[in-house]
């Protein structure tokens, strides 16, 4: 099995450590992984605005880049839900349909395709609140939403429970949207920020040191708010926890403190020096 790794733009540019964690984790799970260098984007940003015309060439490019892989895996429920559920700006050829069906978010790929449940190397002695994104919950059904009267499940939590030392914390509104919503975060700025503040407060109120998510886009928004409000809350992708790092980016000259470029460094929840877990 060869997996084509899709890395969303904001992970590539802002959180490369999450991409590295995803790559290393899949390799640890004995998966052959390739990162096709021609990849750009899945088309979601335009499609979510309703702009099918501008989304089409980007979607086409995605299919051409990934058409020869048995599986396509991305550490983002949001992008994957676009590919699988909404990528219809282009003609639905058998090839397009095949690519859409074969694209998986990391947690569901590990759970449903690889069926792996043990991560003996993983240790994370911190309290975590899981922020499954709306795409993860209501589009990909990685967790059962609280609105639906059915047996609860949470694939993200099931994996994280296997990590040594990790403590899961429950929120009052576990699946309330964080307010990111793509362009919504800037075009509806006041509402978006208010939702984000409430989400961070819910996480913090229950004593979590970290918000862990399947989606860095949500966390980028929540992190921006937390840093502005100067709170101690930290943000981390599920892949980093399951892989055991890296917790900081390679060659990170943004961090002034020496030694923080070590990609295998441990996170420092609630310590004053938090520059290596941004």
């Amino acid at each position, binding site marked *: 099995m060869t997996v084509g790794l899709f*890395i969303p*733009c904001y*992970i*590539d*540019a*802002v*959180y*490369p450590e999450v*991409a*590295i964690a995803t790559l290393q984790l899949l390799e640890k799970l004995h998966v052959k992984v*390739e*990162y*096709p*260098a*021609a990849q*750009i*984007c899945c*088309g979601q*940003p*335009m499609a*979510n*605005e*309703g*702009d099918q015309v*501008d989304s089409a060439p*980007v979607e086409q*490019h995605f299919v051409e880049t990934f058409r020869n892989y048995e599986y396509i895996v991305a550490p983002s429920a949001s992008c994957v839900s676009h590919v699988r559920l*909404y990528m219809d700006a282009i003609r639905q050829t058998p090839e397009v349909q095949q690519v859409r069906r074969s694209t998986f978010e990391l947690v569901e790929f590990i759970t449903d395709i690889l069926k792996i449940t043990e991560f003996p190397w993983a240790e994370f002695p911190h309290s975590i609140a899981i922020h499954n994104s*709306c795409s993860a919950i*209501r589009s990909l059904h990685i967790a059962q*939403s609280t*609105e*639906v*009267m*059915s047996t609860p499940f949470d694939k993200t939590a099931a994996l994280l429970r296997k990590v040594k030392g990790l403590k899961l914390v429950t929120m009052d509104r576990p*699946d309330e*949207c964080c*307010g990111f*919503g*793509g*362009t*919504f975060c*800037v*075009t*509806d*700025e*006041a*509402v978006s*920020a208010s*939702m*984000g503040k409430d989400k961070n407060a819910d996480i913090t109120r229950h004593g979590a040191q970290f918000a862990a998510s399947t989606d860095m886009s949500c966390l980028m*928004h929540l992190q*921006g*708010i937390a*840093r502005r409000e100067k709170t101690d809350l930290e943000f981390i992708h599920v892949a980093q926890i399951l892989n055991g790092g890296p917790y900081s*980016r*390679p*060659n990170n*000259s*943004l961090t002034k403190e020496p030694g923080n470029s070590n990609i295998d460094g441990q996170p420092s929840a609630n310590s004053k020096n938090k520059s290596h877990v941004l």
Partner: protein
Amino acid sequence: MSFNIVHPEKLAAEFLNKDKQHEPQHDEHLWTSRVKRDKEAASIPEWEEFRELASRIKQHTLTHLDQYLEQFEINAVKHGAVVHWARTAEEHNQIVLDILRQHSVKDVIKSKSMLQEECGMIPFLEKHGISVTESDLGERIQQLDKEQPSHIVVPAVHKTKEDIARLFARHIGTDPNNTDAHYLNDSMRKHARPLFLKAQAAMTGANFAIAETGSFVVCTNEGNADIGASLPPLHIASIGIEKLIPTTEDLAIFIRMLSRSALGSKITQYTSHFSGPRKNSELHIILTDNGRSKRLGMPEFWESLKCIRCGACMNTCPVFRRSSGLSYGAVYGGPIGIILDPTIDEKKYSELPYHSSLCGSCTEVCPVKIDISGQIRQWRRVMADHKRLSLIRRLAFKAGAAVLSRPKLFRAAEAGAYGSIKLLPHFLIYNNLFNAWGKHREMPPFAKETFHDWYQKNHENDEHIQD
């Protein structure tokens, strides 16, 4: 530029920035309803089957609407009701005015009706010298404050007790500093009672109209529809044609779901069935279209006609809870409003589909399984197709698409992101949007080395299936 177009994000920001009381309280009240709804829904083991069944009953009725409407009319007439048909809001209002004039009515008491709201009936009647008093407390509050209802079920939920104390002080002479709910409620009751007794006609809406019996059902928690329908000798009910259901047996499922979805209570305090006029009275029913048959003919949007007006989508919507129903600038706010309002005026409400984070919660609480979130997405496509995207959206996305379709440009943009001008990822490339990000948020911590570059360095000898 934006003449006549409602900008919900601006109205929402005003509500949020008003003070530190309104928005948190609004959010908490409505969230409490959502939590109660979850509890009540969970108490019915077959809840999800109910949703499916309710959806199918509505779908069936809407696809045989002509038959059920005629059946309803025949049976209602048998009971002695007079049935009128109104194609438009104007026709509806004119029919009401004609009936009132025939009976020399000067004062009307009315219970809640979103349809009458939609038709702009009160201003129309007032223009013709007829005084109308809302009998629902929340609606009365909104009427006194000259505002539209901000929520289908709880019309004044965006107001605090302090707001209401000040409002009542201005209009009915209560103590502006006494915010005790019992005191305010009792004062309004004393003030409204004589108006109720004086009215020569009552108006109601209807929650359901049953074809097999020709009767209709009005659900309230205050019994206010009943006082109206019981006192004056004239009762006029405005019923949207989508309110039809085939049988009384079908009604059971909707009654079990309506109040549980709306407020998380098992049933409304009053569930009144009206079958024909009282002795020495008249009952008029106005079956009103006002755009509904046009909506029924829209392959992508007909589903919104299944709506039973429970407001569950409003309670669960994180955007609605933070912005209030008034931010939608329309009779119908919230998720259901986003998909209904553009069928009434596409241009005016062209920004509404963007007042959503597309979280999808509305779709999952809807008791009749309208895919509200999917329809919001669909409306965005319509707005983009019809070139209704605002300038800021167009610029952002032209730039985005131009960069995204060219890998090298994309890489260049990313490289630029690390420089002194810290650009957001491509989908936020646009200076004005930048400021919006930074108002409450620090900029994302861009990495010096992208994953792309890291991978090229560390995996450069890997074989690729395709590159």
